[in-house]
């Protein structure tokens, strides 16, 4: 399942809900990302996340489908905040369930790499020194490219590029 949330995300509740639909899974991996409290030596005062419907939703849904194709998953959950957040607030919750732990670890890792580099969001970080738009780091693109290398395929264009 997937949802964009305009209200606070509660990871422990999200995990409890996820546990109700494990379908006999033996291993669950979850990732939670939080608004960092400090950036480049300045205190962060807030984070604002903008989405573009329906591109954001269709892109994430395609990434979930890709994960389900690559790994034998019994359940997947992606909850992502939009709007204004405070330092320490959860931004994203990803959970994956599988019979064994390795598919769960890899699928959660894959989904996070997708979310960090390809998901249609724009992030504005507010600090005591001013506002700054955050774009993916070089490491994020490198992490993302691991999944291309694995299939032996060249780096794909974003999945929502229209064929001409």
């Amino acid at each position, binding site marked *: 399942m997937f949802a964009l949330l305009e209200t606070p995300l509660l990871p422990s509740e999200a995990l409890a809900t996820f546990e109700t639909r494990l379908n006999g899974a033996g291993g669950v991996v979850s990732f939670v990302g939080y608004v960092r409290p400090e950036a480049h030596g300045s205190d962060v005062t807030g984070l604002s996340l903008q989405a573009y419907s329906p*591109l954001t939703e269709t892109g994430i849904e395609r990434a979930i489908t890709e994960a389900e194709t690559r790994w034998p998953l019994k359940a997947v959950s992606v909850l992502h905040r939009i709007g204004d957040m405070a330092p320490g607030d959860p*931004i994203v919750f990803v959970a994956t369930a599988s019979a064994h732990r390795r598919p769960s670890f890899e699928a959660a890792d894959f989904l996070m790499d997708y979310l960090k*580099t390809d998901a249609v969001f724009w992030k504005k970080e507010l600090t005591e020194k001013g506002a700054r738009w955050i774009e993916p780091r070089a490491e994020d693109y490198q992490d993302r490219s691991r999944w291309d290398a694995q299939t032996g395929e060249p780096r794909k264009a974003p999945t929502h590029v229209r064929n001409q």
Partner: protein
Amino acid sequence: MAELLYFGRLTDVTGTGGEEVSLPSDVNDTSALRQWLEIERGWHGTLTDPSVRIAINDEIVPDPSEIANGDRIAFLPPVGGG
């Protein structure tokens, strides 16, 4: 009229998240649109930056792609959530 949408850091330059424009007849693809807005608005290359992708009617397209009045055309700087 075409609907133009600006996201993320672009709005720092455009000052707005969206606007309606009447496309001149010779502005009929995404590359021409980027050039036309650059000249018209003097946005210091913000929209001609190749890292800024364009979506037509909610689908990301490569340059140049055909556009027409009636389209919703979104300018998307590099994305990333999580």
